[in-house]
């Protein structure tokens, strides 16, 4: 993609500049030195601990396959248990 360069005459450019100035006056910028009011690390640790263990989708698929296999061929169950 080519760089966007609006084709503006000087009048349009100054109008754009005035709009930018108006916007900057209306919406206060965030200070460069804005700092956190509290330590977020304990909250983050709690968030990590709260996350339940996730089972990958292929584990579910494998489980479903085994159940389907056992339902279709019940005779393989003892063989399967033997190899567990």
């Amino acid at each position, binding site marked *: *993609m*080519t*760089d*966007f*360069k*609006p084709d503006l005459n000087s009048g349009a450019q100054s*109008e*754009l500049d*005035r*709009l*930018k*100035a*108006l*916007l*900057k*006056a*209306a*919406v*206060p*910028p*965030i200070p*460069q030195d*804005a*700092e*956190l*009011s*509290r330590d*977020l*690390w304990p*909250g*983050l640790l709690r*968030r*990590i601990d709260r*996350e339940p263990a996730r089972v990958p989708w292929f584990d579910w698929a494998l489980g479903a396959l085994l159940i389907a296999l056992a339902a279709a061929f019940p005779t393989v169950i003892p063989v399967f248990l033997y190899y567990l």
Partner: protein
Amino acid sequence: MPESSKHVLNRFRQGDVDAFEELFRSHQDGVYRWILRIVRDTGAAEDITVETFFKIYRAHARFDSERGFEPWARRIATHAALDWIRAHKLECEFTPALEATLSSPSCDPAVQAEIRLKTAEAFTRLPVKLRVATMLAVVDEQPHKLIAESLGITVGAVKLRVFRALRLLRKDLERQGIRP
């Protein structure tokens, strides 16, 4: 990149919590400020910072050390902040800067305040994508390259969004009888 930083990043990639804490401590303020610039709400920015680092922690195995931690974290933070804005359907409310002056110094202070308020309101009505790009580029004067990286778009697209936002803002203000 110093050898120690590389070591920390490699440990983080392997899921080491101590390395993650080290990265968190050194980047939390930067990530928080970036989020704050997008959502303009300190409480929400803190919550989103936690959510961002949680996502970073979960995605540790996908981290590409060649691309650097900071741009990666900023990108995740940007998406988390945008998700938050969309989820809350919140048209961020801005408090007009009382100290700011308009380009016409002769203007009545009460009129100036009214114009600032209407401008802030018109700005909140812009589509989120345009508003965020414009806020970062114009209000907070962040480099276009940084904004482009964080939003996952090109520098040209950032400029286009800013241009479109200013054009829409001008039209909205003109409808209200304000000629910038």
